[in-house]
């Protein structure tokens, strides 16, 4: 999370990280990493009234911050809760840059190409 906020926003912040690490409830109680999975038919893109989110040819779902007015529709639309809102009310969305992978010393995160 620090790698994501440091590299993408220049700050040390948990709230500005697009990758979320948390513990999960339920019978199993383990760690979980929440990260945008670049859906085939992304509900966040459909939810955004301003076109701030866009599905690219290469599969990525990218976010244009200047178009975002902070309505939060995308965050609600994403069931895995990969989008959060920052203190200025704009969406925080993974751009699939892989910064987090470079700073994971334990082999938990990996960057891979997926074919659909």
């Amino acid at each position, binding site marked *: 999370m620090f790698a994501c906020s440091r590299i993408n926003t220049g700050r040390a912040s948990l709230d500005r990280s697009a990758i979320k690490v948390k513990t*999960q*409830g*339920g*019978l*199993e109680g*383990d760690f*979980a990493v929440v990260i945008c*999975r670049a*859906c*085939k*038919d*992304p*509900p*966040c893109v*459909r939810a955004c009234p301003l076109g701030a989110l866009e599905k690219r040819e290469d599969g990525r779902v990218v976010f244009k911050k200047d178009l975002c007015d902070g309505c939060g529709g995308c965050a609600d*639309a*994403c*069931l*895995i*809760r*990969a989008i959060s809102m920052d203190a200025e009310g704009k969406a925080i969305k993974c751009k699939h840059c892989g910064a987090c992978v470079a700073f994971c010393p*334990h*082999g*938990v995160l990996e960057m891979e190409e997926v074919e659909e």
Partner: protein
Amino acid sequence: MLRRVLYIDLDRKESFVEDRYDLFEEWLGGTGVATQLLLEGCPEGADPLSPQAPIIFGIGPLTALFPAMTKTVAAFKSPLNGELGESYAGGRLAMAMRFAGHEAIVIRGAAESPCYISIRDDEVKIKDAASIWGVPATVVGYILRDVEAGVGRRSIIRIGPAGERLVRYAGVVVDTYRHFGRLGLGAVFGSKNLKAIVVSGTEDVEVPDPKRYREIYNQLYKTAVKTDAMEKYHDIGTPINVNVLNQLKGLPTRNFQESSFEEAEKISGEHLADNYLFRRVSCAHCPIGCIHIGMLKTSFSRHHEFEIRKISYDYELIYALGSNLGVTTPEGMLELIEACERQGLDAISTGVVLAWATEALDRGMITEDETLGIPLRWDGVKGYLEAIEKIVKAPNDFYSTLARGVEAASERYGGRDFAMALGGNEVAGYHTGPAFIFGLTVGVRHSHLDNAGYSIDQTAAKKPLTPEEMVDAIIAEDDARGVYNSLIGCLFARGVYTPDKIVEALGSVGIEKTKEDLEILGRKIFEEKYRFKVREGFDLKKLRVPARFYETVSTVGMVDPDTIETMMKIYRERRGWD
């Protein structure tokens, strides 16, 4: 008093509730009612994966009221064998339906794009599930837990990638570690673009005479927690059967080529309990707690980075993904179980399909061209793991045929004699003798739980039974279970619910029935199920028994095909079918 049926139409995205006193009055609830809803809701000859084919869930008059009355029935047309699809699951679903006030749910149509259904009391919402499409069944559980209300009282049921991709034996995972496993309900969900259903409710269940209810409850509870029969399910659990059946020569090994396994001890219930078991859980309102969860410690990178995976195991899974694939390590077997859990596959069918493929490869009926270079061989866990993924992804003709079941695979590639299915359903883990084989053949859903033939065989191993006696025992079980599955109780507690106790329990919730009423009802329910089966093309005369059953010694010695034929004659007579 039960009555409410919730109808959900995925085409129109709407739902409504109808009071169906008529149905519950006549058919009690559970499978009795679900069968009627299937008969009326599924057009004759409908493609099981088309929008016309409905999904029906039902609970019964004792749900949430008595110990171990924990099951929900699912009725559908099976995409695996094209006739009656019926499956039972525990967990919290039955309780959640009861508290939501829906005694049956009928889902029709198909959504245009991935969706899930959220049911909270009378509020039904059909929501977008595009962001969880393709996600493993296990993970969908954690995700929906965070976005849906009702902590502690809700039930979350979902499919994995196998259901989405229409593997004909994909199941539906219920809460954690329970399943509608058999006969392909997962594929029916997938065909409707339905990823999951979340149910929760806040209603109470009232009874007409609380005093009487408490009295009969206490009796049943005492028997449930005190009988030895129940304790065995809690202690070692169903896997106690591994060593038992192994000794009795009833443990199918390497695709039924043998009936005992030299490495059985290593995958036995005792060994697992001593070395891998870390927790037991139970379905909501069950005093037994038979669900055994083992832990598998695996490293995901060098330098001692570990994760602990918690995997529930049961006898049938140990057979299907253990002995029947010649797997000699608990680790390997647990990994295979987990792979099925993530993909949302029925473990029994998957194991039987892989066992057939291993033998077919060994005999040269298929080659590594078909398996895409995967060396399927006994105990080859790595290959099996890869094959499971390929069955779901179906990258070639071979794997997409495997995804249609062992019957389809052997029709296409040969090896019928060792394609271990009866009535189109891959067989459960017993080679105990003729009652098992015959019970699966005539059972309404070709499941070992229709009439427990394996247990009749084990009785016969001590004191031989005539074909008449075996047939009578099978018919009695078939019919009695129609009633029990209408209540709906967990079959592990069936010893607690004698006919007298069922009459009393029903009486205490205001349903007056006699034992005779229930006997007649049991027979009628059986007949109604056959009505659906026959309507959809089932023909008992055309059923095939794989020769392998006659080639491998069983608990009661070699099985003679003539015994099965004799039993069939007697059976038809007794059922009045000739």
